[in-house]
């Protein structure tokens, strides 16, 4: 009788863990990639290629779901419980926030993959109406009276933060440039912004589909995509004298993949971004590849630019975020909705 009781007790205490293991297996090979706004088309193609590759190598089907939105907003979603197996966001700060606030991945996540976990880069350019009727050539033109500028909200959009900092860096680099002058310059620029979308894709809609604004400060890939999709007779791309090296990072969300039992496939998914096949897809979607061969192959579509980095001008994302985009930061000081 006592033995029977012991066995029953042990079974009861062990059952939860047994079911926990079964639950992990039960989740199967579905992944959720939480990404930022303009990567929709990139990951549609990439997911299909990866699924084919994974099936061929492991004999296992994988279905990758996508979620897109402003990078900051997406990061908040993951912090609030959106179960992303991987995050592919616009800037490292947003993944840092997930590591710091939700502790879903370690603080040194950026060291786990090559090139600071950034398999592709991009930069910021100007998309203007065909023929560039307002004669926009550089950042200084964007702050002139009568110019209508489209850019998303830096509070919610990673791309917008790159835009903002590129403008700030431009002002700093001008003769006699300092923080005060940069602030005044960016303030003037944002006075010319009539609509603040929450993400880059929304701003594309505002500029391209709604026909609002003279210039759209855009991801290079988004600008190239707009020209390709809507025809070269409608828009021109203007490359400013100085821009910023945007390094969108990727990371496996450890706690989610361990809970769901998807770590191997999630890890392979991100590593596939660095393969020649992955890099080719990246370049086809107008992201600048890291791989030298792919970069050479697509060199024609990526003009050489004078690019600054966040680290060299702003001392890294943590500092840039605190100074400019935190509550009460320079953006809050210079921009007031409706004014």
């Amino acid at each position, binding site marked *: 009788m006592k033995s029977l009781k012991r066995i*029953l007790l042990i079974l*009861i205490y062990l*059952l*939860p863990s047994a079911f926990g293991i079964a639950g992990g297996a039960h989740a199967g090979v579905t992944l959720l990639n939480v990404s930022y706004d303009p990567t929709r088309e990139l990951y549609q193609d990439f997911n299909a290629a990866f699924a084919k590759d994974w099936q061929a190598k492991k004999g296992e089907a994988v279905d990758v779901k996508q979620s897109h939105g402003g990078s900051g907003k997406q990061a908040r979603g993951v912090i609030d*419980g959106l179960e992303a197996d991987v995050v592919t966001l616009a800037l490292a700060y947003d993944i840092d926030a997930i590591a710091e606030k939700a502790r879903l991945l370690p603080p040194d996540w950026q060291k786990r993959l090559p090139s600071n976990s950034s398999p592709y880069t991009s930069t910021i350019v100007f998309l203007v109406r065909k023929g560039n009727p307002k004669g926009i050539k550089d950042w200084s033109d964007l702050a002139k009276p009568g110019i209508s500028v489209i850019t998303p909200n830096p509070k919610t959009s990673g791309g917008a933060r790159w835009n903002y900092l590129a403008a700030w860096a431009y002002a700093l680099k001008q003769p006699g440039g300092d923080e005060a002058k940069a602030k005044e310059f960016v303030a003037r620029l944002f006075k010319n912004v009539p*609509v*603040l979308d*929450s993400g880059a894709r929304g701003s594309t809609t505002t500029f391209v589909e709604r*026909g*609002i604004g003279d210039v759209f400060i855009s991801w290079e890939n988004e600008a190239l995509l707009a020209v390709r999709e809507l025809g070269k007779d409608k828009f021109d791309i203007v490359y400013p004298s100085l821009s910023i090296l945007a390094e969108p990072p990727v990371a496996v969300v450890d706690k989610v993949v361990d809970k769901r039992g998807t770590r191997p496939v999630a890890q392979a998914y991100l590593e596939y971004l660095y393969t020649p096949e992955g890099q080719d897809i990246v370049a086809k979607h107008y992201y600048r590849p890291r791989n030298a061969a792919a970069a050479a192959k697509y060199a024609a579509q990526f003009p050489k630019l004078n690019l600054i980095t966040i680290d060299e001008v702003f001392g890294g994302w943590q500092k840039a975020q605190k100074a400019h985009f935190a509550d009460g930061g320079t953006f809050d000081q210079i921009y007031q909705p409706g004014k």
Partner: protein
Amino acid sequence: MKAPIRKSWFLLGISLIALGFSQPAAAKARRAKTVSQGPTLQEYQQRLEELEQKQKVLERNLELKEEAEKEKAKERPVVKAGSGGISIGSADGNNEIRFRGLVQGDARFYLDRDGQGAVNTFIARRVRPWIEGRFAKRWEFRIMPDFGEGKVVLQDAWINTVIFPEFKIQVGKIKTPVGLERLEGAADLHFVERGLPTQLAPNRDLGILLNGEVLEGVFQYHIGVFNGVPDGASADFDLNNSKDFVGRVYAHPFKKTSVEAAKGFGIGVSGTLGHQSGNEKDPQLPSYKTTGQQTFFKYLNDGTAAGTVVASGRRWRISPQGYWYYKGFGILGEYIVSSQNVSLGAASADIKNQAWQVAASYVIGADNSFGRIKPKKPLGWKQGGTGAFEFGARYNELKVDKDAFPTFADPTKSARKAKAWGVAFNWILNENAKFMLDFEQTRFDGGAAAGGNRKTENVILNRYQLAF
């Protein structure tokens, strides 16, 4: 006079000539001024474009504002009030608190009162305000006190962790999953009081219960460890280190088939196994009541160690059970045997008590159910609905082990057997309100002096309840 007249005509002529020359020049000047000061066509176009831009900006900002409002709306708490209570929940449905309640006002009228303590009475049978809900999608809870019958009892206090629908872990004070009618909600009963088999089934107990539903309810299972309570009893703590193991499996084998008539058929078995002991202060033994809530059996108990029967060993129960509901018809049957080793001084015995029942009912105006019956046309003064009407009948018995007498129970005060039948009429006004009227007759074997039988109990039970 002629000279001034001529002079006048001359001056008029000069003036007219001057005027004739001067008018086109002024007009030309005015035209030139207008042309030089007014907007050009190009300027008009530019203004039009600016206006268009402003209009587009306004429209887009309005569009973004609406999108932001929609996003905010997704995050706003959802407040609901309905037949299932009042709830406040997060927009994503992962968090919710429901405020619920049950009030049952009963009246018991004993016909041919037998002089054994039965008193006609109105009584607040159950008064249960409770809260239940879930947090973070997977953590469900319920806290349910009961102020009925002039007492305050904590009926339910549990946390249910939903790992999967197939696997949940429930911890706390829980209704022990043994008796079938016991598991039916107090607000959903077809008769005012549960039948005699429920007297042998444990009520609420503290423990841990693994439970789940497989294939969307085709199979249900429960397996748990509890402190262990006597038949029909609830408890908030244990007297000893021994625990009762509880198991139940129940199936609706036709639920996923196309056989409509069989979908509401369920069958299962439950049981408990443990080793319990009591003392003269708390013997850990039950007494049994009729459906009229009169005690007809109890073990000897004079409060002394020498004169009080106590639980002193193995206790087990087993209960095959089933029901079938189809449209207005419903039938429920269960059998239960409860065995407990008892002792009085040096005397000891395994006492096996048994009970069973068959209860059937037919509902007009709603589908019959093990759960809440929902009238197709709730009572409404304007709509003309009359609610639903339920007619029921049942037969139930409880037989006490003959070995209980006379060593452990007094045959002149405790009956060996209770045989009861009852009929019920329920007017289900809507999902929340119900009026119930039962007649129950219970006959006894034994329980009176000189080998006689306890007097038959005839009782009319009324209930008016509100549940939400």
